[in-house]
Structures are given as C-alpha cells and as structure tokens.
C-alpha cells in the first residue's frame, strides 16, 4: 500500500468559528488543516493514517493521542523525527509518512 492512498478514515472536525487554515505538505501533497491542530489530527482528517507499520502490511493512525503509545512518529522531509500527536501544524511544513531516502 503506498502512503499516498487514503485510508478514508473519517476523523470529523467540529465547527470552530475562528479557525484559520494552515497549508502544509504530506508526502509532497498539499494538505489543509486548522491552526491549533496537531499533525495527528491533520493527517487523520486528510490521509486517514500517519505511517506504515514496519513488520506487517498495515497502516497506523496513532492510538493514544497523548504521547504514550509512540505509534505516530513521522518524518519531516529533511529526515527529522517528529511525533504527530504532540506537534502542531505549521505552514509550509513538509512531512513524510515514511523514512526519506538517506542523504535527503
């Protein structure tokens, strides 16, 4: 399963009057989220998952939302590790749901 395919998971957003959009990239594709959202919220709302599991053919979408389960680690496109549930979306971030090629 390529990371670009959506799991079509249905995280639902509540209406917030003053919410402001934040645009950033995930696997090279533009994603729009709301200011104040974490990467976990944003990716689950858009892509439906945050990473591919290493040992089985399965995707993961986080689990605990509180930095305990460690199942939502992503990469920035420059290769840094970032935990989705404890990181806020920032405009022009470029994230990757799989490890970037070495030397990227």
């Amino acid at each position, binding site marked *: 399963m390529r990371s670009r395919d959506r799991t079509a998971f249905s995280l639902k957003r509540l209406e917030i009057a003053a919410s402001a959009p934040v645009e950033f990239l995930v696997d090279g594709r533009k994603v729009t989220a709301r200011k104040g959202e974490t990467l976990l919220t944003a990716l689950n709302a858009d892509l439906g998952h945050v990473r591919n599991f290493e040992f089985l053919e399965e995707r993961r979408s986080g689990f605990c939302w509180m930095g305990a389960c460690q199942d939502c680690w992503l990469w920035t496109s420059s290769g840094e590790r970032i935990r989705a549930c404890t990181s806020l979306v920032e405009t022009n971030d470029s994230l990757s749901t799989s*490890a970037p090629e*070495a030397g990227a």
Partner: protein
Amino acid sequence: MTSFDVAIIGGGLAGCSAALHARRRGASVILFERGRCGAQASGVNYGGVRQQGRHPAELPLARRSRAMWERLVDLIGQDCEFSATGHLKLARNDADMADLVAHQQMVSSFGLSLEILDRSDLRRRYPYLGQDFAGGSLCAEDGQANPRLVAPAFARCAREKGAVIREQCSIKLAVADRNGFQLFAAGEDAPVHARRLINTAGAWGAGVAKWFGDIVREEVMAPNMCVTEPIAPLVGPNLGICGGGIYVRQATGHGSVIFGSGLGTADRDALRARPLADVTMEAASAAIKMVPALANVLLVRSWTGIEGRMPDGLPVIGASPSTPNLFHAFGFSGHGFQLGPAVGAVLAELSLEGGSPTSLDGLSMTRFGEPKSNSAAPVAAVRT
C-alpha cells in the same frame, strides 16, 4: 549418595554449552545458576560474533566456535538469529592501518582470512560511513546473533538431553573432597556431590576460584549498550573501530541498530547494573559520527549488565593450578559471546578426557603468577 560426573557453577553461555557438551558425552551433569540461564552478561551483550580483532591466544577457540555458530541449528535446534553480516574494523589513520595489516597476517596463520580496504573502497562499498576513515579490515565470515536467545537455548537442549539444570539456585560454597567436590546450595541441607567441577561463574568466577585458593583479580565492567527503533536496512557489517570506542550493528531482519560505547556502572555484590546517561549521550554522538544517517533515528532503550574483566583483558580458561578436576572459564572481559559455544565444548573435553584439541595457551590462570598455597582452600568438613 548420588554423585554427578560433572557439576557446573554458572549458567551463562559457556556453562550452558559445557552442560550440553558434557551430557552429549554421556556424563551425568548438574548445572547451578543463581538466577536464570543467560540472564547476565551472556544475555545483555552487544551480540557481535567476531573473530577479527582477537588476541592470538583466543583465536583457536574463536575459530572452533565459528564453526559451531554455523551449525547452531544442528547443535541446539535454532539459529538464534546468527547472521554472517561481516565485521568491518575501521582505521582512523595510517598507524591503525598498519595494525590492521599486521593483524591480518597474524590471523592468517589460524586460517582466518581478512580483507584490507582502503579509503576509496570504504567510500564505494559503505557510503553511509561518516568520518574520513583511512581504511578498514573486513572479516566476511564474522557477524552477529541475538544474545538473549543463545544461552537459554543451550540450557534447554542440555536439559532435554538429561542434564539437571537448577536455576534460581545459588551455590554458597564448594569444597574439594576425596571423591571430587561437594557443592552447598543456599537453603539446602545436603550438599551435591560431583567428580568434576566447572567454574563458569562469569563476573563472580574469581569468587568461586577463591574457594579453592586460586586467587586472581577480576573486576567488573558494564558495557553501556543502546538500541534504536527499527529502520530500513542501512548498515551491513558489524562495525568497529581501531582503539575501541563505538561499535555498531544493525539487527538483520528486525532493523534496529544496536551500539555501544563506554561503560555504565555495576555492583557485583548487589547484582545490579545500570547504564549512565552521560555515557549514552557520548555514545549517541559517536554513533552519529560513524554513521551520520543515524542522527534522526530514535533511541529506544539503553541497558547494561555485569561482565567480568581480567587485568590483561583475556579470560581465564583451563585447569585449576591447585585443585585436580576443577576447571575455570571466566573473565571474558566483554568479548566472550562468540567464544561461548567452543568454551563449553573444550570444558567438557578437559574435564572428561583430560585434554582438548583446542589450544588454550596463554589463557591459564598461572599467567598471573604462582597460585597461593592450598592452605587457603576450605577443607571438606564444613558445616553448612
């Protein structure tokens, strides 16, 4: 009164291998392990299965052991994730290169073949390496295994073949008597009798040896180990560097990267050891220097264990200088894992046949000087 042919104190890899090999020779065997087999140094070490870099005194054992690693499945029914990924020892400078070349010549007389690589070879074959190394030496048949699995597998096999493996059973004292040895276990009234005694008590080996007046100085060391999350295949061979320092391997299949550098802290008597945060941080720094792509990999865990170290960094292996039918193998100084299977085989031979085809020259306890007189050894009539 039952008397075992062979009693073993210490259920690490060497002891469990000795139990299996002695049992396969038809001897009645009892092994005592204070905790669980393989729970100490044998289970928490780096997992390198390495011949390269050893002192010549260890090479006959290392060569014999390597053949056993190859056929671990035949020996104990599982391969313990042994994989011949190679061992690459890196040279920092020309002086290191000269040492590597000299080592290559030395080991060739033992039938071990190493390949010397220059700077451009390294760049071409191992582009993930960081620092500007002068070159390296590759031992293609070296590799790695999962240390947590090996000693317990030997113990299980020995038990299946009829060896008595007594875990969570601590020997408080052993003494020599007319018929061999009496072993006094904690909480038990009657001693266990055995004709021959093998001391594979690891970091506590010198303590056991002392019961018989074989006095050597054994210190403890606690190699500070680290492991990362699993990552895509990056590092092929098991990496080391001249002069010691950092060693790095990537677990074949699983993908986590294990590295070690420096020492944690250990309390031999309290049976406690822990890694040190400062040492872990230095190791992280050194790992990144060696393999820059590790910079953004997550460190998941650090650990250490209690390992025995001898003053010259070589184990004590061989017959007791003072006491007939007593055999020692301890003090592996941080590099006993690869040797373990063969050490056990040799101990079985020494104890049951009086000799071994594998040379143990240079490993005898006597290299530290004359043994103390037997008046220091406890006599048989000891009240428990």
